[in-house]
């Protein structure tokens, strides 16, 4: 089929004539005959209608839950209509990285605005233009902290398991050593952290709120890390930052996080957005694209990609990272989301999540066998015990059209991680509780 090719056979022949070439095949003459493919073994091409039909059929095989009480790193929040409208603009959608500043001022300015918003949200001084996701942001942040004699990374067991795995992979790559800090009641065991810190530790990574939803004492963690000469990286939920003390207020050196809650749909896990901000001191170690403000020859304000001396296309093997693409369009989604919400809206989302989660916790606690496991405060996620095997519970909920909390593994086997956002209504929670009561009755029989 197509290939979106404009030239027909006669036009191709004319072009070949002008090139001075007998056939298309001749253009490929440098490719040795031994490696020429005799025919590509995939199905024949489809029309647009057929392709769309095929993909619609696949999309239909997925179950879209109306009610979701599952977060664990991917959160269903309300996405204002304006977000998709802005990021669907083809000048943004079909542009490459803004290398040619003069015709890319719009994209560059949008990134500059995004950087400002991330700085405001985290309280940090410098933000980059984004990285792939929260996990790679954490891994890149750990690499930023490496110093001569300091090659160990302490990572909280209360961080997202996939973030830990990603950090472990990156450490395997660059030869840093990753050590887990134990967790208690959903929070990092800070006494254990004190024991693990030493002169060989480059940095400490904590997630705020933790994977289990608990609010960490990040300030104490920062004090401990700094006393040992190490840096603190805080992985933050950006919605929680509408309420919580900022990483800067806690004394973090680097703030990272998964930006998906900021206007990015669940999308089966991606594309998402890694945000990354740091103190002014660490600015030149920050990986990824950074946009700066300057002027043109006439003194007009202009924006450019800057501090490129850090980057791979200049520094090659000595670059601070290999990163080249970021998640520009996702960063734009986040910026439009934050602009639409404004400071008041963001706070409202955060407060509704917090209140809703506590309402659910209260309702669940009233049922036999559901005990909240978090010690201390939690934000919009929390862990409970479960009177039946969690998979039995979630299966039953799914039959009722509800994606329930996430059954946990490892040390938390038998427990469930629940999440509430502003998308959940009290009626949904009532219905959830009704199904659980039925389940319990069925169990009792």
């Amino acid at each position, binding site marked *: 089929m197509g290939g979106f090719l404009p030239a027909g056979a006669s036009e191709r022949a004319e072009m070949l004539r002008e090139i001075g070439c007998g056939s298309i095949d001749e253009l490929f003459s440098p490719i040795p005959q031994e490696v020429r493919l005799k025919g590509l073994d995939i199905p024949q091409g489809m029309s647009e209608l057929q392709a769309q039909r095929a993909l619609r059929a696949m999309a239909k095989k997925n179950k879209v839950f109306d009610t979701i009480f599952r977060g664990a790193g991917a959160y269903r929040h*309300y996405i204002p209509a304006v977000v998709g409208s802005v990021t669907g603009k083809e000048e943004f959608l079909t542009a490459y990285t803004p290398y040619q500043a003069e015709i890319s001022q719009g994209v560059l300015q949008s990134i500059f605005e995004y950087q400002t918003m991330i700085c405001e949200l985290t309280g940090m001084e410098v933000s980059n233009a984004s990285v792939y996701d929260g996990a790679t942001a954490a891994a890149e942040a750990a690499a930023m902290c490496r110093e001569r004699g300091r090659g160990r990374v302490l990572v909280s067991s209360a961080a997202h398991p996939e973030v830990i795995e990603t950090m472990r992979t990156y450490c395997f790559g660059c030869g840093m050593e990753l050590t887990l800090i134990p967790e208690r009641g959903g929070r990092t065991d800070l006494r254990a952290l004190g024991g693990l810190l030493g002169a060989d530790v480059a940095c400490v990574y904590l997630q705020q709120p933790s994977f289990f939803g608990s609010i960490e004492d990040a300030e104490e963690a920062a004090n401990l890390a700094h006393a040992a000469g190490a840096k603190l990286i805080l992985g933050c939920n950006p919605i929680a930052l509408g309420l919580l003390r900022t990483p800067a207020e806690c004394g973090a050196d680097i703030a990272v996080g998964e930006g998906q809650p900021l206007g990015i749909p669940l999308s089966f896990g991606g594309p998402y957005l890694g945000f990354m901000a740091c103190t002014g001191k660490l600015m030149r170690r920050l990986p990824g694209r950074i946009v700066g403000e300057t002027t043109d020859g006439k003194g007009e304000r202009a924006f450019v990609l800057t501090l490129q001396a850090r980057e791979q296309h200049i520094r090659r093997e000595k670059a601070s990272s290999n990163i080249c*693409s970021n998640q520009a369009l996702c960063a734009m989604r986040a*910026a439009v989301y934050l602009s639409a919400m404004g400071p008041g809206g963001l706070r409202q989302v955060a407060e509704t999540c917090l209140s809703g989660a506590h309402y659910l916790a209260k309702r669940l606690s009233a049922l036999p066998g559901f005990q909240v496991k978090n010690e201390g405060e939690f934000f919009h996620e929390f862990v409970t015990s479960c009177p039946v095997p969690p998979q039995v519970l979630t299966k039953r909920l799914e039959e009722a059209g509800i994606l329930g909390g996430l059954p946990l593994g490892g040390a938390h086997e038998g427990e469930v991680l629940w999440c509430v956002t502003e998308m959940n209504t009290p009626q949904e929670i009532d219905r959830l509780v009704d199904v659980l009561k039925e389940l319990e009755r069925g169990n009792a029989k």
Partner: protein
Amino acid sequence: MSKLIFERSVEGRGCSLLPESPFERTELPARLCRGKAPRLPQITENDLCRHYTSLAQRSFGVNCGFYPLGSCTMKYNPKVNEVAASLEGFTEVHPYQPAYAVQGCLEVLDTAERYLCKITGMDAVTFQPAAGAHGEYTGLLLIKAYHHHRGEDHRNKIIVPDSAHGTNPASATMAGYAVVSIPSAPDGCVDLDALRAAAGPDTAGIMLTNPNTVGLFDRNILEITKIVHDAGGLCYYDGANLNAVMGIARPGDMGFDVVHLNLHKTFSTPHGGGGPGSGAVGCKELLTPFLPAGQVEKTGEGYRFAAPGECSIGRVKSFYGNFLVVVRALCYLLMLGCEGIPAAAQGAVLNANYMMKKLSSTYDIPYPGPCMHEFVMSLQSLKDDCSVSAMDIAKGLLDRGIHPPTMYFPLIVHEALMVEPTETESRETLNEAIDAFLALYEEAKENPQKLHEAPITTPVGRPDEVKAARSPVLRHRFGEE
């Protein structure tokens, strides 16, 4: 001058989006709460939309005009891809839904994997990497894990030709390798003697872009992969330039063990101003035990994620990669199929050769053709004769509504402009661009000053990059600081 969104903000304004919280209010202790609210914009939806419309008007995508940015494969992005990626059945799916409830997503990954295996000659593909450089990194970790597993950790060097993209050596360093840079031969291809001298018992592998960054298919490709394999190393194929050869020749048949693809280049997904992309990595069977978690397998009861192998490198990203980008690429693959894929490569090579031919009597082409999907011009003599640089010509193109080629790359060509027209451009578009290049050449001779001052029709002139780097202003300051 366009205002920043913060400069449009007025205290108390906003959009009407959410109801009051229906829940009894929970308060956090003050010690846990932030001291002051973030200074986010306070703006009506109308002003918000106009702000971004004004930014869009000062941006340039493939939809706006010709974009022959070498190495970036700025082909047309079919709109049906966007329709597919916005289906609710894909966008509203939680990554931790049970397998039975995500059969469609798994079918997308499995189908795309099968297509890409056939196109690359590989045995498996992971979609976890989010971009080309991320794919390079993942591929190198596979190589590292392979050697580690065989007790050959002493293989600590990666060979990279000096014509490679900067990401190659940077990725190798991140993967813990020392980089051995080898010079290119006078014909622009790998210098076989230099390669033989570099390959040895400490070689972990080679990273090669083929067609290479001067737009040539390396005639000695089979010899290259043999030299590296004979030394015990593995061969990594940087698929940045796969658009030239897809459906014509396969990295797997050239002797490569692992390859990354840029779905956002070769397979038509939009670049979004710098992402999200997808750097899918394919590998031969000898490397599949090391793949990251998240490989899809088909069983009697449908699709599911296979448990990661014991020797897996782990994970390089959360969840399963940039899934919606894979949906777009699959849509494109389904449409092109077995005839369309090679036809697209042929079209790309035809267009590049056509442009090169028409420009070659005026501009210096350091590595004469036939080229593959792109070609490189050197403006060194123009610079010597009339002090007009590659940068000046590029900026002159801006005034003619054309996105400039990649500038000053590859590093082995002085005053380089790297032109990649792609297959989706018509002959008329190519002719207009050719005329623009030729006119700029004349202008360089007659009125070089005019080109030093270009561009003059864009929203801003050349920004002061030195100032930007020397005294960095990386965020808005809100006046009072």
